[in-house]
């Protein structure tokens, strides 16, 4: 019986820990994403089902790319992002995907497999994330410099010259 109680207590503590971890926002206390201010980051579920602070990945000029499964334009952008990574180099550019349809790792994993999305991707269908980044539609691309300052937010389809130009700007 005691073993069962311990098991239940451990499960509850694990659940509480996971909940607190997922609820935590890191390095952000403002009303939403703003150009010229530090990027808000969150602990989200990745494609392996692990909660992870995606802010830890922002250690170089970074693009956070918000997308979902119904957006055809978004698929075109993936090809542009791959070409951008090849052009500027992995060491100089980080790309992070957030799928706003996904609530768990299943959809993220399937999306990455289907589209050969080689960048880290997280499940972003969370009210706090969507409100903070003001995601009312996709695609949205958030450009961040190496100092983790938001430099530009593009809320529409982006053409390659504009993408490359903006990457150069956040790389200065």
């Amino acid at each position, binding site marked *: 019986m005691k073993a069962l109680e311990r098991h239940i207590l451990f499960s509850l503590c694990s659940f509480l820990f996971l909940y607190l971890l997922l609820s935590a926002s890191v390095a952000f206390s403002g009303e939403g994403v703003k150009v010229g201010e530090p990027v808000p980051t969150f602990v989200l579920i990745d494609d392996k089902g692990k909660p992870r602070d995606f802010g830890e990945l922002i250690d170089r000029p970074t693009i956070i790319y918000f997308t979902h499964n119904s957006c*055809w334009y978004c698929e075109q952008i993936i090809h542009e992002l791959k070409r951008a990574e090849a052009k500027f180099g992995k060491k100089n550019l980080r790309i992070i995907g957030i799928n706003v349809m996904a609530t768990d790792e299943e*959809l993220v994993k399937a999306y990455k497999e*289907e589209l050969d999305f080689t960048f880290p991707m997280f499940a972003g269908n969370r009210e706090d994330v*969507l409100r903070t980044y003001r995601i009312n539609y996709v695609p949205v691309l958030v450009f961040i410099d190496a100092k983790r300052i938001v430099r530009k937010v593009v809320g529409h389809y982006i053409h390659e010259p504009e993408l490359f130009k903006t990457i150069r700007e956040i790389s200065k």
Partner: protein
Amino acid sequence: MINRREFLELLLLTSGYTLLGSRLSLASPIQDIEVSEVDLNITYVTEILKPPKRSNVDIWIPVPQTDQEQEITGLKVESPLPYRFTTEPVWKNRMVYINTERLNPGDRILMHYRIKRKATGVIVDRQRDPSRYLEPSEWEKWDEKISAFVDKLTAGDDNPVEIARKVYNALIERLRYIHEVCGRGVSTITFEEKVGRCDEYHALFRSMMMYRKIPVSWEQGMALPYPSELKKEGQFEADCINAHSWVRFYIGDGRWFPVDVSEADRRPALKEFYFGRLLPDRIKLSNGRGFTLAPPQRGIINTFAYTYIEAGGIPAIYGHNYRNRIHYKLIDMRREKQ
């Protein structure tokens, strides 16, 4: 110089116009607001591109229904896979449902029908219970900023039409239309960001009106070209970019008043028109938002205007796994009687 075929076509069109009087000749300039009905043969195609890697595939395709604004006849489905018609219980939206273990590249499901889409204004529907249209979907809940805005905007007003007109004007003033995005239609974000497409405009319209206890219905479909832009035949992608929504609010005695705020913002010349009337430039495919399909899907869909596919319970990717197209053939176009 025109060739013989063009001459004969022109002759036929001219003869038709002479004989039928109120029908519009394609050769004559068309004023959109004069067109009272478009008559089209539609073929809606869902084509599998790269089948999803996961097995156990579910497909839901919205089926248009006849109502006061459109007449659907000759509905016929061609599918290499077994299908059935289903109806979801909440808003009675109808759909074609397919379940299959796997799909093959090039599988095509075709839906043929003829639509007579009318220009409409206020409709009378005493079967509708207005109280059902006071419940916001999860994307249309309002916050204190929206309620304070509406309080200030409509202080002292009780007439639904007057309140709606103020909200309509305010949204056109406040929001900026953006085309090439797939919207989520979240009112609170739209209010703050001041940008969006039809879903964003109409979600916020609903929120503001429902806050004032005025019932508002959500109508969802696909945008057709404007009558003046219709060709004899044409096709377009039936995806989130061409999906279109509009709304009707309740003015009492079974009467529902239409508005299309986003189109009014896009086409300022039609701002007066779109407060109370709709052009026949749309196909209605469903009512309501955020409902559960039949049989239930696993993912969340906030509107149902085009084919939705899941594989193993995971939404398929539009443009990668599948795509939809609408082919139309113009049969006739009528204008209002003078």
